[in-house]
């Protein structure tokens, strides 16, 4: 499946995933702890990094869903006469979002997963790491399967109805997920189970 990791290899890709995530955590906490003007500098950091690494257009595109959210916040503060606070809030959100996306773009999914499994180690008695890794692999495997099923079902809907797709489609996909879970459980069992 498609990940958000950039296919363009940069120097940042070689840094350790754990290090990048720790850095991001410090950066985000600082962003909210420091006074407003710092958020501008905070946005400048990932901006400069993406420009230097040639990831800027890709990085900018990820902001698209956030633009309207920023505009709403600005307008909202404008109406209540607190425009400067609004600007700070939006800049801070964009800075945190931009830095996080930089880490996501330059870290491979498998490296992220390794950090995650390491962080989840204290949970080992409740959720053994092998089971967790298996569950993750199953999700990655079955997102495209269910997405395809959803697409086929909505085509079947459109082939027989001029109206917009309605809730029976959700029923059909949910049932497919439930049935697939049964089949996959059997397939797992047939090949040695989860132990």
């Amino acid at each position, binding site marked *: 499946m498609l990940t958000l990791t950039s296919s363009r290899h940069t120097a940042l890709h070689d840094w350790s995933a754990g290090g990048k995530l720790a850095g991001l955590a410090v950066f985000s906490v600082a962003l909210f702890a420091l006074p407003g003007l710092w958020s501008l500098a905070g946005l400048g950091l990932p901006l400069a990094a993406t420009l230097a690494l040639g990831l800027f257009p890709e990085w900018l595109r990820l902001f698209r869903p956030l633009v309207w959210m920023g505009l709403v916040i600005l307008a909202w503060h404008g109406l209540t006469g607190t425009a400067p606070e609004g600007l700070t809030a939006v800049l801070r959100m964009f800075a945190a979002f931009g830095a996080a996306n930089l880490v996501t773009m330059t870290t491979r999914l498998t490296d992220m997963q390794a950090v995650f499994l390491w962080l989840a180690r204290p949970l080992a008695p409740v959720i053994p790491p092998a089971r967790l890794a298996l569950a993750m692999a199953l999700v*990655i495997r079955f997102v495209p399967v269910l997405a395809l099923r959803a697409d086929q079902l909505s085509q079947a809907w459109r082939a027989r109805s001029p109206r917009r797709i309605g809730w029976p489609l959700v029923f059909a996909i949910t049932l497919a997920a439930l049935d697939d879970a049964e089949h996959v459980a059997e397939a797992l069992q*047939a*090949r*040695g189970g989860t132990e």
Partner: protein
Amino acid sequence: MSGIHLNDVSLSLQGKPILTGIDLHLTEARIGLIGRNGSGKTSLLRLMAGLVAPTSGRVTVEGASPTDRKALLRSLGILFQNPDHQILFPTVIEELSFGLIQQGVPKAQAQARARDALTAEGRAHWEKAATHTLSQGQRQYLCLLALLLMAPRWLLLDEPFAALDLPTEARLRRRLDALPQRLITISHAPAAVERCDRVLWLEQGRIRADGPPAQVLPEFRAQMARIGEADADTDL
């Protein structure tokens, strides 16, 4: 106690009888299992694979109960009709090495063996491929490879050719014919089991006939033709 034994096995699901009074001792290298839709073929396979427990009676595979999962993994593998019900992993290499890891092979070694198997099949380029990008025939083939890596003594195949085009079917058939394993193949088409050593005909959950294909298939064909001629098929 070699082979697969079923002693007076019956199976009901939610109170509905699926299989009744099945008595079999299977040792032949190639066994065909035929019958109409809903006759219980898949349920019989699932019983042998220990995926469902019989309501009454006893199943043993190579002397062990199918509930002994460890022993069963070495003696039996099952190929589901729909590869999407079988493929568990996003990439080919994970899918192939999983079974070996379940048998206790260390991960690195399992992956190396999976890689060797792919190379031997001339498909080394599949290693990193995403399983959902493979075609139907390729996914079926991947499922078979995953089973063969586990080297079980028996392979149970549920309609292995149902969704394949003719050249793919011919290739898969050749591959299966050459296997040293004992095969039990489900089909609703008599032609698919013509060269088996033994054919079982299942009807409404009971063994209707059991013997060499030359003996079982003509009667099966005649009966299917007879039913097909009648228009009102209330159980379709």
